[in-house]
């Protein structure tokens, strides 16, 4: 536990140090602020969805930026030799890093709470619905971060890792539009795999355990793949 904590702390420290994370933060808040402002000023109404609607799309771009460094940089710097010759197991390593990336998600979502408060000053806000939506976005973003960790475990180049994670995320994104083109059973099947589809209920203020489970399985799957990919490096 102490080792996971220590890895987690180191990773957060490096987030604060890396210019890439500031670019990602700036991008996130700039675009979110712009989309919120235009939606709010255009509609002249108080609607919670103005806050969380753009977020899932923003995370599509921000996730690769925030995760590509995590393992790739260790390989490039040769610090993976320190990690893998220390008495830690690969699971602890992945866990420490993943938790750090989730903390960054929490930070982004926490700062974005200023928008609901702006809305609140102009009218009444349904806080229950908003909390459900935030929980949904948090789960979605956490799932995406797991994809990023996995992509980063594949290459010593941050660029390759970033592009890979963007490609995987985009593929998951497109499942939604594929399902739109289908009917009946196949449509439902495709929807089950779409991370966007599972967000819908949260945005209506409904917290359904099956959706929560979907995201959890998603996270475990990709963290498991990361562990596998790291173990495999030893057998090169």
């Amino acid at each position, binding site marked *: 536990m102490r080792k996971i904590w220590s890895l987690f702390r180191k990773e957060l420290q490096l987030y604060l140090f*890396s210019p890439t994370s500031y670019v990602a933060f700036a991008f996130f808040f700039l675009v979110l602020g712009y989309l919120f402002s235009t939606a709010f000023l255009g509609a002249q109404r108080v609607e919670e969805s103005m806050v969380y609607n753009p977020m899932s799309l923003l995370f599509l771009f921000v996730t690769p930026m925030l995760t590509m460094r995590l393992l790739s940089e260790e390989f490039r710097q040769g610090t993976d030799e320190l990690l893998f010759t220390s008495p830690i197991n690969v699971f602890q390593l992945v866990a420490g890093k993943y938790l750090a990336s989730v903390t960054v998600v929490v930070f982004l979502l926490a700062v974005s709470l200023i928008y609901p408060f702006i809305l609140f000053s102009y009218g009444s806000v349904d806080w229950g619905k908003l909390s459900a939506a935030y929980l949904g976005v948090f789960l979605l973003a956490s799932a995406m971060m797991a994809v990023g960790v996995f992509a980063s475990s594949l290459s010593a180049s941050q660029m390759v890792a970033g592009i890979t994670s963007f490609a995987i995320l985009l593929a998951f994104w497109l499942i939604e539009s594929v399902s739109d083109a289908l009917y009946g059973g196949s449509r439902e099947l495709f929807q089950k795999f779409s991370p966007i589809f599972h967000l819908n209920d949260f945005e209506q203020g409904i917290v359904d355990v099956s959706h929560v489970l979907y995201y959890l399985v998603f996270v475990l799957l990709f963290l498991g793949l990361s562990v596998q990919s790291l173990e495999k490096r030893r*057998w090169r």
Partner: protein
Amino acid sequence: MLEVRNLSKRYPGRGGIENIRFSVDRGEIVGFLGPNGAGKTTTMRMITGYLSPTEGEVRVDGQLMTEHSSKTKTQIGYLPESPPLYPEMTVEDYLRFVADLREVPVREQKHRIADVLERTGITGRERQLIRRLSKGYKQRLGLAQAILHRPDLLILDEPTTGLDPKQITEIRELIRELGEKHTVLLSTHILPEVEMICKRVLIIDRGRLVEDDRPERLARRLEQGSTLSLEVKGKPEAVQEKLLSISGVKRVDVTDSPSKERVKLLVTVQNETDLRERIFYTLAEEKMPILEMQRRDLSLEDVFLKLTTSEGGSQADA
């Protein structure tokens, strides 16, 4: 302390490590020598558990690396070829991080960190960013990291590369000091280094272990007749002819003749015979005074070349 048995690492299509076996006793400083690409780093990576062997096993203190990896790993201190440092961290933060990874109890960390900083001569730079350290200090920090958890076995992969002569001497001194308490396996391609620090040397070539002995003994064993270098006053051809007439002299090469009446030669003498006296009297009779005579032992460098170049034999005859 360390036992390597039939260790192999095979890569498809290119050479790897083939059947390496050796053992290192507690308190030994062993040099691991070989040309670039011979497999030193790969072998060390398998010993430290960074890579898994295709075949064979590594035991540290009797424990199998693959089975008791986390316990075994706490007994090993490893300095890879490039020190594994995080440029954005400060020296102190970095060592604290390493201490956590290597299971150094929290209460002891402060004291241990101060101790290794002192021993590696980094004291006073705790708050500096690693990125701003000079190459020599990075190397020292790499060593500090390797000894922080007081391992029994130290594996150092080319610890002196890229340092200036003064730093090299300091690092060697430090390694020798460490050798008093730890078992050290040290890889290098700098031969005098091995002669200076190590009591035993392993030579590896193209993935195979070709020698395992004490440095001086190795040199003596491989010596096929010793060499004398001479400077003689006299006509080069006459001197050469005279020397060749002495029984036991295998070959005479003129290396230089500074003037018509002076010559420098290399005399190869058959196995283990000392011809110095006979050469002296023979040349004295001919009124060819010896200005200089020196016996040359095979340096480790020659041994190394002999063992690692397949054309070693024909080269000597050329």
